[in-house]
């Protein structure tokens, strides 16, 4: 919903705090109420109705303080009544619009409970906008706060009869059943009566008397409306209303809840007969990743209207969505707490005054007493406008919006580090508009999204961009709905144990709402993938998707379901040892390939990847890093193929290299038991570099996902050279083949396929590149071939430009290479890929192992030896003089 003329408002309140050291039934400490509210709040941001103010964001401050940001308008019913007298038609229109809002809320299971003259707002066109309607929902029917929700004079009789909210001691569940939606009808009735009378209800009575008045209705036979008419001096104004209006009020103020009509029923009342036709059907905006018809109700603007767009004065900002504007405001330095403190609305006592005097070890008493001092009273829910600040900042930007979003001056920003780019309002604004347009055209614009994602992904749209990169399509909601997420299964227990340990520093994910969502998404995945089982780590994998798509479980599930086969094919088999063993063996090769010194050291102390890297790969690092780092890592990971995670692993080791080299086995174990800080940006860049320097076949895994039908290939850009899997290429006899795990483990170096050799060495002349490695046309061949066969074999035919160091005679007794021209050539090609070519048999692999021992980097072995090249006719006789 676009910003339009709305302002932003802020509400603050304090959640009630638990007594010291209270535990729940499960023995774990209770979740703080503020966290609970935080979790429940998020559903409210999905509510969209013309009669409601949108909720935008919730922030948790210190000491259970909560700050809520929502759409806000300055005009409210109370002010309006003072400004002018409302006619009966005005009042009926008002009632009609409020009821419409209530109907929408009822449909979504929300009870307002808090309706009052102050929170019935009006937009500049004079339409009703209800605000503060989420209080009762987000506080879990009032159990999370110590103050009552609603004003005493408006409380419905049934609410008063139930008494103030009480909670069960150990479960924190309410003792009374929650209020039904009909309490709002009662309140609305009273509000309308007040408006008609132009007088506040019971304004001369004390608090007790006010409450007593409502309860008294129960005992009396007279209809409450008649009582009010009698007991207020302006009661006469009610009598002059038309019969229809009076009937409406009488129905609303029916003492018996079952006879009191619901909002939907009231809308059918004959007084509203004329209004129903006036209202046009509300059009829901197109939401991403749904199967809704996106062109439904599409109306093209008339040409003369389009002309107006060129108008200089158009307020571009008001066309953007509220979420965007709010996001930009924060980027521009907007800090709600700061604003509130400055306005004097967030005032707390200095802590030194609150400190208790005495505390016994076992006691909760002192702390309880203290919280009364610190209570922040509901009255602090005053609104403060943020919008003026926003408009100033955004104003500058909007006037620079050019037709092409990727304007020139931004290319400079694009080279800055990601952290800076994510904080740059100007840059983010352009990225947001760009992605907004691209995503609306998904999947048609998929190629374009891929291209832009390689630059960066704006945090605001990350959820959708990820889904686009994972190629989520179709009616995901229906799919998700059809999965049985409730029936108990064997894995439930394990899931329940794991969730409270998964990324719980994250405020949102630690809320009970998040735990429930977690469970549902995980169960949905387990139930719909019968061939797999739940392994610990799946929860970590789910966490980034859930935190991004908190209000869209279906999308979170679809992303998870698309992510796992892409990167973790077969990892969740019941017996996944073969898959993981192969993965780790390839990882070991990769370490040796890029950093022989480190590899030698780790091998020497016996610190093998099995000891530390399994959680890395099983969770794609989601278990190792905090969420804010994972998103940056995955931004790149999602663009890469299934081998890319291996390169990230090498990059992490590279960052810890100095320490690892100086550490023994025990220290290494300790180091990884609690992952040290890693610079993610550096890690990502390093892993891209590593990836580009690794021949594709070197990371071949037989358990990788087999080639799929490439039906979407035309949509996907080919320019992303590293996004394709090796397995997706056409296999031929020169390609890589499966190698047994024992063989893999016994070798130190990766193998390279003949086709990669031919291509990297440009042995077949410049051909259309199928291999990943980027190269300039002028650069010299990227590799050096070392033929380790006996000289006589070598002379019979070998690859062009190769050197011959026979395995049997190449090494001195000390294990060094015996100097010769071939060794010189080897030394002068230090940074190039060295392909060791031999006959079938182990000589080549052993020779490569020796080279690694001697700290030669980038050594690999030709798969299947020289024989495989015989069919290619590239073998030549070497020049005789070498």
């Amino acid at each position: 919903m676009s910003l339009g003329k709305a302002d932003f408002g802020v509400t603050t309140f304090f959640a009630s705090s638990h007594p010291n050291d209270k535990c729940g039934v499960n023995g774990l400490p209770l979740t703080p109420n503020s966290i609970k509210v935080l979790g429940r709040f998020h559903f409210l941001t999905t509510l969209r109705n013309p009669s409601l103010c949108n909720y935008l964001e919730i922030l948790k401050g210190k000491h259970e303080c909560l700050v809520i940001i929502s759409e806000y308008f300055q005009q409210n019913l109370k002010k309006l009544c003072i400004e002018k007298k409302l006619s009966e038609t005005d009042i009926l229109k008002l009632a009609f619009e409020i009821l419409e809002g209530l109907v929408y809320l009822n449909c979504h299971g929300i009870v307002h409970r808090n309706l009052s003259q102050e929170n019935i707002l009006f937009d500049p066109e004079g339409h009703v906008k209800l605000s503060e309607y989420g209080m009762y929902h987000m506080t879990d029917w009032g159990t999370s706060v110590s103050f009552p929700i609603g004003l005493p004079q408006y409380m419905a009789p049934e609410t008063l009869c139930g008494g103030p909210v009480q909670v069960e001691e150990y479960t924190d569940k309410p003792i009374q059943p929650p209020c039904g939606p009909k309490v709002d009808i009662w309140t609305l009735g009273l509000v309308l009566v007040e408006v008609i009378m132009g007088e506040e209800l019971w304004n001369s009575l004390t608090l007790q008397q006010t409450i007593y008045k409502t309860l008294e209705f129960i005992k009396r036979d007279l209809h409450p409306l008649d009582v009010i008419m009698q007991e207020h001096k302006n009661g006469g104004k009610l009598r002059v209303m038309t019969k229809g209006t009076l009937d409406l009020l009488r129905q609303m103020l029916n003492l018996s809840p079952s006879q009191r009509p619901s909002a939907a029923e009231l809308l059918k009342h004959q007084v509203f007969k004329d209004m129903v036709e006036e209202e046009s059907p509300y059009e829901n905006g197109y939401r991403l990743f749904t199967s809704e018809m996106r062109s439904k109700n599409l109306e093209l603007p008339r040409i003369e209207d389009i002309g107006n767009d060129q108008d200089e004065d158009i307020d571009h900002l008001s066309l953007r969505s509220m979420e965007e504007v709010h996001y930009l405001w924060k980027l521009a330095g907007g800090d709600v707490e700061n604003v509130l403190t400055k306005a004097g609305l967030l005032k707390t006592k200095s802590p030194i005054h609150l400190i208790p005097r005495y505390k016994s070890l076992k006691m909760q008493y002192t702390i309880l007493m203290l919280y009364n001092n610190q209570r922040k009273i509901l009255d602090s829910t005053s609104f403060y406008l943020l919008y003026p600040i926003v408009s100033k900042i955004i104003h500058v930007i909007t006037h620079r919006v050019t037709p092409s979003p990727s304007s020139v001056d931004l290319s400079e920003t694009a080279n800055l580090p990601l952290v800076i780019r994510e904080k740059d309002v100007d840059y983010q604004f352009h990225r947001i508009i760009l992605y907004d347009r691209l995503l609306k055209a998904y999947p048609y614009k998929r190629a374009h999204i891929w291209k832009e994602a390689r630059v960066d992904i704006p945090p605001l749209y990350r959820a959708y961009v990820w889904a686009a990169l994972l190629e989520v399509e179709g009616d995901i909601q229906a799919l998700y709905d059809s999965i049985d997420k409730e029936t108990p299964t064997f894995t439930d227990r394990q899931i329940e144990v794991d969730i409270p340990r998964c990324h719980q520093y994250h405020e949102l994910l630690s809320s009970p709402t998040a735990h429930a969502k977690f469970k549902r998404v995980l169960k949905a995945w387990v139930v719909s993938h019968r061939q797999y089982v739940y392994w610990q780590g799946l929860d970590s994998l789910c966490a980034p998707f859930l935190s991004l798509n908190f209000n869209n479980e279906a999308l979170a599930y679809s992303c998870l379901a698309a992510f796992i086969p892409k990167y973790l094919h077969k990892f969740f088999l019941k017996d996944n040892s073969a898959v993981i063993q192969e993965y780790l063996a390839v990882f070991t090769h990769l370490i040796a390939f890029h950093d022989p010194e480190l590899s030698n050291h780790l091998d020497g102390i016996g610190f093998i990847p099995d000891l530390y890297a399994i959680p890395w790969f099983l969770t794609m690092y989601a278990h190792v890093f905090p969420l804010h780092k994972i998103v940056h890592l995955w931004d790149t990971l999602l663009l890469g193929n299934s081998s890319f995670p291996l390169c990230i692993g090498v990059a992490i080791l590279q960052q810890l290299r100095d320490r690892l080299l100086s550490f023994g086995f025990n220290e290494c174990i300790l180091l990884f038991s609690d992952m040290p800080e890693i610079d993610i940006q550096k890690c990502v860049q390093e892993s891209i570099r590593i990836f580009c320097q690794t021949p594709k076949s070197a990371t071949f895994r037989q358990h990788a996902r087999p080639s799929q039908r490439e039906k979407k290939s035309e949509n996907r850009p080919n320019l992303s050279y590293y996004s394709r899997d090796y397995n997706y290429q056409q296999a031929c006899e020169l390609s890589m083949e499966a190698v047994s795990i024992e063989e893999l483990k016994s070798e130190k170096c990766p193998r390279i396929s003949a086709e990669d050799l031919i291509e990297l060495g440009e042995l077949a002349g410049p051909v259309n590149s199928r291999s990943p490695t980027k190269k300039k046309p002028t650069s010299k061949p990227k590799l050096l071939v070392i033929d380790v066969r006996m000289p006589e074999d070598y002379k019979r035919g070998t690859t062009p430009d190769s050197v011959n160091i026979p395995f049997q005679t190449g090494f001195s007794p000390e294990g060094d290479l015996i100097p010769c021209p071939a060794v010189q050539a080897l030394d002068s090609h230090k940074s190039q890929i060295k392909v060791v070519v031999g006959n079938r048999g182990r000589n080549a692999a052993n020779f490569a192992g020796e080279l690694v021992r001697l700290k030669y980097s980038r050594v690999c072995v030709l798969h299947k030896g020289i024989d495989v090249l015989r069919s290619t006719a590239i073998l030549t006789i070497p020049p005789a003089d070498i």
Partner: protein
Amino acid sequence: MSLAVEKEFVFTFSSKDQKSTLKVPVTIPLQQSASDLVGRLVAAHNLPCYVEDDLKKSLEKFVDDETWKFHDENAEAAIAKVRKDPSLVDGLVDKWSGVFKKEVKKFADNEAVSEEEKFADVYHTLIHSPALETLLNLEHEYACTIEDLIDQRDRDLQHLENSQRKEMETAVQNVGVMYTDDQINQLAQRHFENTQLIDSKWSGELSNVKESQKKEYREWVMTVHQAMQTTDRVPAYLQRVRALSLTMPEAKEGERSSQSTTMEESFTIHLGAQMKTTHNLRLLCTDVLDLCRHKPHTVGGVLVPQPQRLQTAMSLYSSNLSGLILLVDNRLNYYTGLKRDFAKVCEMSTDFHFPAMDQQFAHIEKEVVIANEFRVHSRSTEDGDSTSIKSGGSGSSDGQDKANRIQTGDFYMTKHSNLAEVHVLFHLVCDDSIRFSDMTSRHPVILSIRNIIKLCFRYDITTITIPLLLAHDMSEEMTIPWCMKRAELIFKCVKGFVMEMSTYSAQESRTIQFLVPRGMSEEMFASISAMLPSIFRLSNSIVVKSSSPNSA
């Protein structure tokens, strides 16, 4: 009235000429969406896809109707209950007006801003304004007066003691000659009474001076604040005080140099598995009272406040407090040992913000009584698992429980504004059991440290000093293994507590100072400091990048 009810949902559909009926119990209110339930039903009962839409429609309607009915029934029941028994009304009115009064400002009794808070606000603004220096000078000037007075008192008492001793000596020498035993006793009695008299005279005078200083000071602060609000110029009062400070005594040469060198080492650590929080740790070998003692000096007539003191004054009303744990015995007084020394330090100057020690102690005493009542009460109602923490060490029988008894593991807090580096003191009650080397993490003192750390998180005490060995002096049984074992225990416990407390709170960094007694050998200090990085994960040191093998 019930929180949820189960209703049976019936759905019939026909395929060809076969009619099927589906009966499912549905919980109202339904927690998930109706379409979710449809998915589940279709899967569980293998329903044909063509009924899905019908099923969804009828289920949605069913749930909707039943939910309305559920709410209506609950509401009617609530009303019926009151209608049946009108006597409930008064109770309800009281309950509701109670919560409204207590929690909603509009209905609350007007809570006037207390004098204390007003002063706190004013002081906080002043100390962060150019008036800072003047303020400190003034405080210093007052402190000097008190110091002077205390000096006189001490001399007076010393003099009295000397003359009394002489008198006594002569008397004792002449026992049996000039004095009888009885007379000696009387003399002793008289001496004692005299001392008491002089002492109380002095303390009366001291407290009078302090009281008037405090009053003056607070008035002065308020006037300056008002003056500052009305004029922008530097008011004249600044000069006045500066002139006064010229008369202050020159510091003695020995005092001016800082206290004896202390062994100290600082660490920056990361805590947490995925999300790391950064904290600062400091290992410190010094006397605990050095952190409290505040000794202003003048050099050439200009006040030289300790920088720590400045920091302490500026953060007094901020959310960066600093606390210190002092180990005490279970008597609520300050007549002996470390407690007396500490009281002396406090006495050295007037506390302009908080009540004097004895007043604070009087308040505590009252609360101890209430707390003990509560304790007795909770013990009788307590069932096994309701309290998560039990003090194992305070195994006293109920009969012994006097109303004002403080148990091991309890602690009381005093607030101070006139100490060097500390705002809040946690007086942690210990007994001899902390000397044993087999202390475990369930010891009441350790649990109490947990509670102290919890309070620190709750009340923004961002710096806390903990005696690492749970001792303020080195003693004989503190052998090297004993010390190492104790240090490890406290390090590990504190690590656990800090991790526990920072679970749901913001990612704030804290400073924890571990204090070891003066007199510890350098080797021992070194080995404790070497142990620390093995328990806490130090943050990455910046490593100058070595050439990687690839670029070589």
